[in-house]
């Protein structure tokens, strides 16, 4: 047993004792939301989620199948089901839409015309899918740090977001792995949308 693990266990027990002594009780539970994260292969889904969980995105390999990550934020925990984006896996996406409360769509702003068109088609299918059409969408225009990256206006126009996504709640955010603050901001906005939806459901 290594020294480090014992010291960590020690510290955690100290923390719990301290809370108990100060009559604070256990730390308050944050609301949890189930999200699904989709996008073409190479758009940066795994890297972004890893970075949000304070893990290094350096060793990330292509996601085959799907993986679930619990991404912690100050006021909520997002349980994100991240689906691989390869051609042979995209046909299985709709299987995982059930039970989602929100969608994160990641695209590579610097990809080729063909890939961008494929991304557009996938986004449109998702926006119109019966299980996703009422949910809030967070669309991340990733890889903004690359020279070939298209701007947010171009993306908004190309993806026809204004006409197609009218009446739905969506956020379009330019981002890159270097700028985590902007990314966290957009997630806060998404959490607000999710909370609103929750309150609506309660009132009904």
């Amino acid at each position: 047993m290594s020294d480090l693990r014992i010291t960590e266990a020690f510290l955690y027990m100290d923390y719990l004792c301290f809370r108990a002594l100060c009559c604070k009780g256990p730390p308050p539970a944050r609301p949890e939301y189930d999200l699904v994260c989709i996008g073409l292969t190479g758009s940066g889904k795994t890297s972004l989620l890893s970075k949000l969980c304070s893990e290094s995105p350096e060793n990330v390999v292509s996601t085959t199948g799907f993986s679930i990550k619990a991404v912690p934020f100050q006021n909520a925990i997002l349980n994100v089901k991240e689906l691989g984006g390869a051609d042979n896996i995209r046909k299985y996406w709709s299987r995982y839409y059930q039970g989602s409360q929100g969608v994160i769509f990641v695209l590579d702003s610097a990809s080729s015309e063909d890939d961008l068109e494929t991304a557009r088609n996938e986004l449109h299918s998702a926006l119109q899918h019966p299980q996703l059409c009422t949910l809030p969408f967070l669309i991340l225009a990733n890889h903004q740090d690359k020279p070939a990256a298209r701007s947010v206006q171009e993306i908004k126009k190309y993806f026809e977001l204004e006409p197609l996504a009218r009446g739905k709640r969506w956020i379009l955010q330019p981002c890159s792995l270097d700028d985590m603050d902007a990314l966290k901001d957009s997630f806060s906005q998404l959490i607000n949308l999710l909370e609103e939806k929750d309150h609506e459901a309660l009132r009904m």
Partner: protein
Amino acid sequence: MLIQVCLYFYCKFLWRCLKFVMRKLTGRCELQRICYNTKPGASRTMKIETSLRDSKSKLLQTSVSVHPDAIEKTIEDIMELKKINPDINPQLGISLQACLLQIVGYRNLIADVEKLRREPYDSDNPQHEEMLLKLWKFLKPNTPLESRISKQWCEIGFQGDDPKTDFRGMGLLGLYNLQYFAERDATAAQQVLSDSLHPKCRDITKEEISKFSKAEWEKKRMDKAIGYSFAIVGINITDLAYNLLISGALKTHFYNIAPEAPTLSHFQQTFCYLMHEFHKFWIEEDPMDIMEFNRVREKFRKRIIKQLQNPDMALCPHFAASEGLINM
């Protein structure tokens, strides 16, 4: 909680007192006691490594990271420090040298593997390109590649027209391992590739025949495909092997199979073994489709780690270490 407090104090203070007492009782230092009491192989080498690393002597602490050429001198210095007479204990020096060679070799292997991993695949580098094309030739000797960027790459399990994007986090290490597997273990590699492409034949029951038309039944058969992508799975297994190496879990395996310092080819042989085993495991698990990959991979990883916890374990015994080492 009490147990943890006791363990904490034991780790910090008591074990040194215990070592002192044992030295006085047996007349031998800890290194000698380990070599006498433990048979050569992973058990001995790992105990020696812990002993050296946790020692209060600077010489012993730094001995785990010396250059391989300086090992002989380091062992002589250690024997002098511990006042061990090499004439009375001729085998001790040799045993310690063997252990230290493995320990230092493992560390250097980590550094070499990390260097390969950090090197991204570069399509402008002719050596990288040559290796990629060789990979195609080994896996598909009868099919010429139409062009460097082509949908044909999907036939060997890459995700798009250009394999370079698939090497991501594993860099050149992924390509090296795939190429080693395809070249040195060609029959196995081609078998795995062929299995991964063909759909599984599902036996159909009489009720199902009446329910579905022939066309629908054909489609169902195709859907129930083993269908995983050879290259992508290979890169994932490289990731698995890399993590096992870095975390030290592979020490059991390498210290048991390599009587001298573990090298990159030992690592690549281990990769081939893991590819084989994973393929068998995948078929045993009989998953619905590729979407279960991460679940199956995690289960496989836990199984390997459990196997490696046995100190006598060698995953793929190409040659047994204990024959080369001298028993004390």
